[in-house]
């Protein structure tokens, strides 16, 4: 008889599912866009006025991210598994962006690095007019 292996999905983690975090609010300054485009090494002059495609990752929902890192779980190493962004409106210089989000999905899998936990976050970015500018899905692995 084999003992059932304990799940790495703790109650603390389960309790986080679908809990809304935020908003965290950011004023988009010209310098932020420049610094970001420079870090990508993308010289497109368009990024002086509007945000480059992945700029949303700089508008962090720290409270939720921190929870993903500190929530009780026997797996302590992290990797990014994937990102998806849907664009509805451009983010422009001087926009004020509010970020909200939640842990939308948790899955356990056996991978090449042993037991892995996939945590999918859903994020919504709105501008000062209340328009949704971006929706994002980020999947983080704990292993």
């Amino acid at each position, binding site marked *: 008889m084999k003992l059932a292996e304990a799940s790495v999905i703790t109650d603390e983690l389960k309790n986080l599912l679908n809990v809304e975090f935020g908003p965290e609010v950011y004023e988009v300054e010209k310098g932020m866009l420049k610094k970001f485009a420079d870090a990508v090494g993308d*010289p497109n002059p368009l990024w002086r006025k509007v945000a480059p495609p992945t700029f949303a990752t700089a508008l962090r929902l720290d409270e939720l991210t921190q929870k993903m890192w500190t929530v009780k779980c026997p797996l302590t190493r992290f990797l990014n*598994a*994937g990102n998806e962004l849907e664009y509805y409106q451009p983010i422009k210089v001087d926009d004020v962006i509010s970020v909200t989000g939640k842990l939308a999905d948790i899955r356990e899998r056996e991978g090449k690095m042993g037991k892995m936990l996939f945590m999918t976050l859903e994020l919504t970015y709105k501008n000062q007019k209340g328009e949704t500018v971006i929706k994002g*899905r980020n999947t983080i692995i704990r292993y």
Partner: protein
Amino acid sequence: MGWSIKVAKQVFYEDVEVGSELAVLVKHPTTMQLVKWAGASGDYYPIHYDKDFAQANGLPGVIVHGWLTCSFLGQLVTDWMGEKGTLAKLGCIYRAMHFPCQNITCKGKVTKKYVQDDKYYVDCEVWAENPKGERTTPGSATVILPSRS
């Protein structure tokens, strides 16, 4: 880093067919670029700049941020679609890691074109390759292109 600004000719919906390839973009992120990325994005997880920490985590050394590779794919697509193109979707999956000071080659191909609500959509598969030519980061993008009609 000596970039030259490319003045690409605007691509129109009528110019692309299923199978059309996006102009290849080769990136070569140094460890310094990873530090700049950490600062610009706010991702300070030490596996991206602290070799000892990365190795203690079972990695061969520091690795490139997934989001930075995704950003390179974003650059691939926005360079291609030009000023009058609009990015509607971008996503990728990180199957294997990239290491600093190695080429990351970004490629893409048109998989579908369609008109919906009077907008001219083009779907592309995009991906990044490591120096061995392996697809580390498969992804997809949807853009809206201007039409000549």
